[in-house]
């Protein structure tokens, strides 16, 4: 998100999902949309199949969208910056860019354009493994759609790299130079992984910002929150999740509260998490199942599922929508909000602080406070959400919401071109670990499987992990379809059955992280993007061996 914040001034999907259907060209990069965001993929497919939009897919792995693609850029993992810079260079060299737009809406163009000098098609082809012809075809298709504008869609295939922020900036540069930001059918559209990642970010569940991306290090917002809450607040940056384990190891963090997450399976270098959490003096996990993480807790609090609570979630297109209670909670399980408020009040009391801080009648009242303190949510209230929800920014109670960002003017004023350079991933295959592992999701399972594994039909459709391996590699390793293999990296080892397929190119294996029996993330690297602190889950070096 930091990438878009730097270039545009706001780090969120610029256009509504439905608007993807209006695109004349689509560049889908680092997103297996049909599996990870199936309903967003419908708009892409409709654009292509029913309105004749050009589709460019950039993905090392063959995904369903490749079937509809005009150009498939099978770039090597970890070469996104080179790829995107290369496309931009062709667009500049062939005069396909939008001069008026660049002049009137952006800044720092010259420095950026200069920085592209080394990204000639030939160089980029050598780095990415994509042919010059395909690079040119993709650049032309994106820069000059037959009708309308061109949209970029991306997901974790862009962000989960040590160069994640650079990758995002490179997409933003590409969109700006072709005049595709702030228009229908265009934009830069990150698809977010979970039902309320966007909302969790918006709510300030990040170590550097208060709700609404107001920086904790800035005095003015801090003063505002101190006044509203009636307590002094720290102006120091907090720890990101990826830094927390280190802090636990160091003894800087003694207690943790984990709400409905399962970092034991979801985090890169997961063994580290499993190793560190027990070092805590006290771990509370609030969840609906005894997840792998909950099993390590000192106290487990039974919360509520989405069907048992009322509140709001914000989807990837910034749409705040109402979740309504449908059924009663099982046993003594309580509503999550109720538990959190109870914990907060009791702890406050013990610390001699005012309990009134957490005196809310219900979620609707919480939203009233959010609206008061969060400018982009200023006009949001449960009573306004109805069937359609509201897309932030929605600053006032009369505001209709904002479907498309940066129309006429970027959030930060002028869009800023930021030069970014290609850097190799933190870990690349070598003699000992000769293959490159990349990870992703499957349509039939979800995240760490806590929920989807408990749906019998889904588990029937995809009952276990399958390591995708190219036929050439399978022959070299003497591994046959369906045979169990051990995949190991410098950090760990897992066993799963092989799926021999040319969906993955030679030299690359693919796994999901849905199965506790095959905790893929013990293999992945904890290397971080220095800005976003996101882990490089899309690239690490592994070896594959036959088992038994």
């Amino acid at each position: 998100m930091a990438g878009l914040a730097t270039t545009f001034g706001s780090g969120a999907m610029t256009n509504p999902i439905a608007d993807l259907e209006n695109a004349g060209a689509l560049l889908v990069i680092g997103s297996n949309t049909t599996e990870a965001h199936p309903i967003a993929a419908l708009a892409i497919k409709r654009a292509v199949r029913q309105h004749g939009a050009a589709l460019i897919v950039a993905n090392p792995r063959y995904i369903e969208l490749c079937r509809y693609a005009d150009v498939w850029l099978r770039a090597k993992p970890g070469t996104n910056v080179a790829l995107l810079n290369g496309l931009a260079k062709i667009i500049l060299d062939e005069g396909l860019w939008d001069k008026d737009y660049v002049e009137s809406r952006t800044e720092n163009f010259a420095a950026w354009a200069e920085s592209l000098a080394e990204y000639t098609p030939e160089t980029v082809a050598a780095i990415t493994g994509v042919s010059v012809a395909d690079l040119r075809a993709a650049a032309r298709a994106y820069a000059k759609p037959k009708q309308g504008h061109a949209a970029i869609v991306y997901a974790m295939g862009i962000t989960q790299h040590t160069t994640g922020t650079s990758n995002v900036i490179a997409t933003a540069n590409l969109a700006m130079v072709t005049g595709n930001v702030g228009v229908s059918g265009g934009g830069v559209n990150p698809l977010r992984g979970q039902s309320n990642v966007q909302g969790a970010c918006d709510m300030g569940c990040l170590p550097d910002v208060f709700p609404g991306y107001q920086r904790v290090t800035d005095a003015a917002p801090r003063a505002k929150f101190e006044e509203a809450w009636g307590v002094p607040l720290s102006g120091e940056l907090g720890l990101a999740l990826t830094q927390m384990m280190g802090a636990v190891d160091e003894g800087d963090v003694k207690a943790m509260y984990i709400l409905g997450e399962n970092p034991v399976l979801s985090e890169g270098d997961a063994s580290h998490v499993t190793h560190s959490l027990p070092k805590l003096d006290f771990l509370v996990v609030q969840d609906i199942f005894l997840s792998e993480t909950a099993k390590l807790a000192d106290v487990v609090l039974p919360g509520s599922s989405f069907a048992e609570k009322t509140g709001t979630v914000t989807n990837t297109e910034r749409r705040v929508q109402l979740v309504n209670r449908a059924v009663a909670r099982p046993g003594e399980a309580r509503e999550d909000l109720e538990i959190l408020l109870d914990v907060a009040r009791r702890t406050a009391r013990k610390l001699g602080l005012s309990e009134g801080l957490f005196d809310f009648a219900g979620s609707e009242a919480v939203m009233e406070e959010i609206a008061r303190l969060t400018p982009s949510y200023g006009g949001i209230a449960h009573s306004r959400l109805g069937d359609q929800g509201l897309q932030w920014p929605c600053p006032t109670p009369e505001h209709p919401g904002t479907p498309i960002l940066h129309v006429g003017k970027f959030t930060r004023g002028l869009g800023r071109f930021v030069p970014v350079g290609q850097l190799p991933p933190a870990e690349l295959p070598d003699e000992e670990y000769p293959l490159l592992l990349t990870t992703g999701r499957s349509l039939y399972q979800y995240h760490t499987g806590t929920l989807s594994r408990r749906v019998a039909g889904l588990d029937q459709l995809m009952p276990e992990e399958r390591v995708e391996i190219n036929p050439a590699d399978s022959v070299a390793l003497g591994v046959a379809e369906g045979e169990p293999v051990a995949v190991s990296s410098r950090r760990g080892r897992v066993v799963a059955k092989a799926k021999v397929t040319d969906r993955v190119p030679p030299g690359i294996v693919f796994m999901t992280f849905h199965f506790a029996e095959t905790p893929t993330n013990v293999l992945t690297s904890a290397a971080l993007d220095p800005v976003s602190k996101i882990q490089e889950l899309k690239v690490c070096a592994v070896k594959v061996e036959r088992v038994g």
Partner: protein
Amino acid sequence: MSTINLTIDGRAIEARQGMTVLEAALAAGIYIPNLCADPDLRPFGACRLCIVEVEGIRGLPASCTVPAGDGMVVRTDSPLLETTRRTLVSLLLADHADDCLACAKNNRCSLQTAAAYVGVRERRFPKATRVLPVDDSNPFFTYDMNKCILCGKCVRVCDEVQGVGAISFVNRGYDTKIGTLMDRPIISSLCESCGQCEAKCPVGAITAKNYQQPSRKVKTVCSYCGVGCGLLLHVRGSKVIAAEGDRESPVNRGSLCVKGRFGYEYVNHRDRLTRPLIRRDGVLQEASWDEALELVATKLAEHRGKFAALASAKCTNEDNYVLQKFTRGVMATNNVDHCARI
């Protein structure tokens, strides 16, 4: 959007430009029997039940494909229309398995509705003798082509809306049926199990396994990915028994994926935590809420400043707001993050 005026059965009707005659009639509260028309799908015109008489147009056009025109004069019933519709329904019934009472779509079957409307009560044509195999391969729904009326809604929704194309019309003429490549079971096709075919099937040809009628439906948002599809949860007693795509949602306009539609089941799972647990002697043991919360509050109060919280990308804005407020306001640290995988 401009409006047009037409006359249906002597009533003056206003319609939107671009509506079909059927849409105009239905919008005005005039029922015309139909089986293959669907507001989410392109006009098809296969079942012919919605035939009407239109002044100036020869024959009996299907109202689902004829655009409503200004000044059009339409009749939805006449002796010819009635006999024709009766014959059509009789033809369909001759080719349709007749175990209505045992059928999952009993009482919500469009063929039943049509038969009742046109007044077909007895068998007129000899029963078809062919028996097609039932495809039970998908964990969520069953294909029984003995009940298929070839309205094509399943094929069309799979292609036009879901963009999958797992099924198609295969063969032609009387042998036409809905099928997959080489007539394999649906499970070995490109089917992504979204179940939209089942949702659209007007008869018992595609039915959800273990279907039960809901006692009420609750509008909410899907709990899986970040797209945030609108859902209608079907509830019976205190149990979620099905999920349906919300056609009014601007996000998914009625569509769902396999997880959205069938992935609710975990809500009812026997593994659900129902009581607080406290680790005693290294083992998590059940405890009362008061005990658990007191312990939590006491321990957290001890570690103020040396605390970190992990919020949830699955919980609500309100939940997360309170957790970060607690972390910052009470625990005096900005150590709050979530599994922001973007």
